[in-house]
């Protein structure tokens, strides 16, 4: 193709794809693709990501619309949680009758 990357990106921007495997589960990010608009992105997502029965619902969102945390600020963001082991509910004795929680 003679197209430049810039032109391709402008005509068919990047979309993030989320698939829900079954009713009752939540949509999970599965990948991304290029498409001209949301209708075409949904069709492309169907053709690229649900060929083996992976789901029954698709969301697409423009990648540029996603706000992401700053990797260089990851330590202040996430490390403070590392030593708060009491936040994990592993210190309780759960009666057998309760079963799996």
């Amino acid at each position: 193709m003679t197209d430049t990357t810039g032109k391709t990106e402008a005509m068919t921007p990047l979309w993030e794809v989320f698939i829900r495997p079954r009713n009752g589960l939540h949509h999970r990010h599965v990948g991304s693709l290029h498409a001209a608009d949301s209708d075409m992105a949904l069709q492309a997502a169907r053709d690229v990501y649900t060929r083996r029965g992976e789901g029954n619902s698709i969301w697409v969102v423009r990648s540029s619309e996603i706000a992401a945390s700053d990797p260089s600020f990851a330590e202040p963001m996430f490390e403070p949680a590392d030593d708060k082991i009491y936040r994990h509910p592993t210190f309780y004795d759960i009666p057998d009758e309760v079963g799996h929680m």
Partner: protein
Amino acid sequence: MAAPDNDANHTAFRALLELADDCLVLGHRLSEWCGHAPTLEEDLALANMGLDLLGQARALYAHAGEIEGKGRSEDDLAFLRRERDYRNCLLVERPNGDFAVTMLRQLYFAAFMEPYWRDIAESSTDADLRGIAAKAQKEMAYHLRHAGEWVIRLGDGTGESAAHMAAAATELHRYTGELFMASPVRTEAVAAGLLPDPENLREAWDDTIATVFRTAKLTAPEVRVHQKGGRDGLHGEDMGHLLAELQFMQRAYPGLSW
């Protein structure tokens, strides 16, 4: 099994072959795009649609082979007939051309087959065929939507894409009349209740195409003489090349399996 009604079976067999050949040949055309489509997304989409059609062809050939009762398998029917014995319409054998031609060909075919499968699923006297039709109708509904969206975006896109769509319409529109022409065998199948009359679909097809073309800012070309001949086994010169590739493996290595 009771002694078959030979005339009725012969009609059903040949009527099913027409449908199966349409699906096989168009499916093969779409498979030619594999690895060559303009984008990865569309490469997968075209192959997906090709596989839908191949699946429909397989089911139809297998069913036709049972009705014929001579022990011919789906492979025998798909790969081991001569060109004149294929009864697909000319539209489906037209070369892929550019992406606009491929998408418009798909739109024309799907706009006919989606409602036709729906009618078959509701009204055919053949329970197996009703089952094949119910599955195929859903597949063609997606082809119709996918091809329609592309025709709209290309027709109402850039000057260049609009020119390609207009050229595709000029090239292909004359092959659409054959979709509605009932061959003698299909006329018999309609009379027997096996298939609905394709003529009933003309208005719906015209509406579908008019809606897409209006949105795409395209004009349907005026066609004076519609091309026909496929149902009589009279194909264009591209058909031989298609069959050479389609049949090569089974001709070179008869009975090959893997």
